[in-house]
């Protein structure tokens, strides 16, 4: 447990009367790329700011590379590279100067890697930061982080504002980090990015963890869409529990969703009705997230889900 790169358990943080984090859990093992997901305002950035020692937590257990993120902040920062979601630069300094500042004050900077990253991200380091677009400001922070020798990378929506070409440069760079056994915590809204980079994801909502596991595991928890044509009337299927969105176009043809947990039972029943044709569609990642992001979704039974994943 203690050798996790990030270990958060029962983290609470309030701002006045607002409870930003409410019993949040997050564990990232060394060498892992953890996707950190949640709707806007769910507490992702607050969690990251606690990890960076910028905020003091109210309750719970937080360890970062075996240290305390508040007490050991300075020592830890030499081993961590951090890219904030909103990169604000000094307008009169050049991008190159700021890269050096972030890098040299922080986790170090390898001149060769620096030059290479500037090249790959196609950044002009002689321009004053005031002339940079949002994407270019993001590149400055990314180059500084990626050109260093950190063990842990904490990236808070690092690619917001990047064009698709730069997005792929970023993904390549993260894959190289993985090859080097680095650990990455990646908060992102770009699902394709998460899908292609992350071994594991943690989804939070309203300050607490609602889901954690591999993408395959998470997929398993959701519903499969089924379109079926049967020899006998299909209506009895609608009566089964765990079947939803049942829509029969005629007596022998229907579309419906079924939770993957209940799939064997439903298939058994369908077989009894005589399947003439069947088409099934696994849940898209989008649907997976939408299910968790929706604020007023009573259908979600968090505990049942937790039971199953074994959290």
């Amino acid at each position, binding site marked *: 447990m203690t050798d996790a790169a990030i270990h958060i358990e029962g983290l609470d943080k309030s701002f006045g009367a607002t409870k930003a984090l409410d019993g949040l859990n997050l564990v990232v093992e060394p060498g892992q790329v953890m996707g950190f997901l949640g709707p806007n305002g769910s507490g992702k950035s607050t969690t990251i*700011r606690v990890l960076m020692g910028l905020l003091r937590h109210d309750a719970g257990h937080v360890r970062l590379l075996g240290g305390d993120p508040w007490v050991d902040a300075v020592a830890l920062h030499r081993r961590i590279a*951090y890219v904030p979601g909103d990169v604000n*630069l000094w307008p009169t300094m050049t991008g190159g100067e700021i890269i*050096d*500042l*972030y890098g040299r004050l922080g986790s170090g900077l390898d001149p060769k890697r620096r030059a290479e990253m500037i090249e790959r991200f196609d950044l002009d*380091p*002689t321009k004053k930061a005031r002339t940079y677009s949002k994407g270019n400001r993001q590149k400055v922070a990314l180059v500084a982080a990626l050109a260093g020798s950190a063990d842990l990378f904490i990236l808070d929506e690092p690619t917001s504002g990047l064009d698709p070409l730069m997005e792929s440069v970023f993904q390549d760079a993260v894959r190289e980090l993985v090859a080097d056994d680095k650990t990455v915590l990646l908060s992102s809204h770009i699902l394709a990015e998460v899908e292609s980079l992350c071994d594991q994801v943690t989804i939070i909502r309203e300050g607490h963890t609602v889901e954690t596991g591999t993408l395959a595991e998470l997929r398993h928890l959701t519903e499969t869409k089924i379109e079926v044509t049967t020899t006998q009337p299909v209506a009895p299927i609608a009566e089964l529990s765990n079947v939803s969105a049942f829509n029969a176009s005629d007596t022998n043809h229907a579309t419906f969703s079924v939770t993957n947990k209940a799939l064997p039972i439903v298939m058994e029943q369908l077989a009894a009705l005589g399947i003439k044709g069947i088409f099934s569609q696994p849940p898209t990642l989008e649907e997976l997230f939408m299910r968790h992001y929706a604020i007023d979704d009573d259908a979600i039974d968090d505990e049942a889900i937790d039971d199953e994943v074994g959290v």
Partner: protein
Amino acid sequence: MNNSFAGTGTLLRLIGRLDRIKLPMWLLGLGFLIAITPLSLRGITNAEAEAQGITPEAALAQQATLLETNGATIALQGPPNAIDTFGGRYAFEIGAFTFAIIGLMNVLLVARHTRAEEETGRTEMVRSASVGAWSSIAAVSIAAILANAFLAALTTAVFAADGLAIGPSALFGASLGLAGLVFAATALVFVQVFEYGRAATGASLAAIGLAFGIRAIGDVQGSWLSLVSPIGWAQAIDPFGDTVYWPLLVLLIAIVASFGLAIALVLRRDVGAGLIAQRPGPAEAAPSLLSPLGLAWRLQRNTLTWWAIGLAALGATYGSVISTLDDLIAENEAMLEALEQFGISPDALRDGFITFILSMIALVASGGIIQSILRPRGEENTGRAEPILSAGVSRRSWLGSHLLLSLIAAPAFMLAGGAAMGVADAAVVGSFTDFGSLLWASLTRVPALWAFAGVGSLLYGLAKRLSFGVWIAFGIVVLVFMFGEVLQLPDWFIDLSPLTHLTNTPLDAQGWVAPMVATLIGMAGIVGGLLAFSQRDLESPT
């Protein structure tokens, strides 16, 4: 044409909403300063007249003889026009300094609602939402016109309520309002020229300082120089004496011309850019930048340098008139007699002038120190502190670097002002005999600046939102220093201001207790601020 001003009304309401606290505070404060002058002066004069068994007008005339020889007062307040009348005396007491404060209100108002908004990107949203290119300028201009009209009307009402004729009262009110608008219009131009809100504000403040300084020299010398300054124009109207009307026209022309220039310039630049173009910079950071102190210096050096230059200009301005003052007194036998009658030596008058000017420099320098102390607050506000504090820089070394610069800036500021004053005086007189004592006298005020630094860093360390309190403390000190006597503030209140205890040289010797207490307050505040800052949450960018 119509489209260029589309949405002005909406923007004006937005300004009203964003400024619902700051502008009313300014207007209330200024209104109070203006209103309290007749109230207290008439009371003081009546009491003095009764004690001597003369009419209040005769008492005024007596005071006038003294005031006319007082270079320090004239330099601060303006030409002693008709100061043997109540109206003239009120106008004199309200003075050039109040004109400058009104200018400050206008500059900050314009800066707040133009470039500062642009820099945060809000203007782009507003402008893309069917708002004309000139609407932003128009809206802030209307806001400035309303604010200055309010001050003009209030002044007129206060003077009229005191029993003065309505015509001259209104004329004086108008002179305040129009001078204020000149500075608002100037700020509008600078806002277009400079790429940066801070640079535009700095240039506008320098314009106020220049306007104030030039007329100070002109007024002390009794020369035409006063007529180069908008404040000089406004004060040349002399509503309670030999009234002239042409300055009103000059003020109006200046306002219209500057406003027209701003409108013309806005079309020539892109939103967010200035008219002064960019050059590429270094691709790599110099080693000197790569430390918390190096970064703090890089961020503060321009501001600190400009403050030092401004203070040197202020010192040189007044330094150049010290010898004029001697001549003025020596040539005027009636004045010499009057001085003798009141038991004042010409040397004491000269030292009094220097003492007052050095204290004013200390007051202005305190503003610079507070701005420097609050720089970390700006870094936290904009989110630029966060990556640095996440990059192996401890809270203490980050904040401590900024505070160290503020501490060093205090003596540097005072030396800049004092040395420039000494050099200017020496240049006129042809000898450096007073130079050393001037430098020492300016240094005796440094602990007052440190006290501000202490208060500011303690408040900032405790919570970002509290740090504004140091400006309130500064406002109170300005009030005590400039208007303490006129307002008849209680002694204990006047004693709260560090400047009260640290502004005696060269007129009187400076004791050791006050500097030590002020230094102690400064250092304790800084240590407390550092400790508190290390324990609190860093706030998210606003």
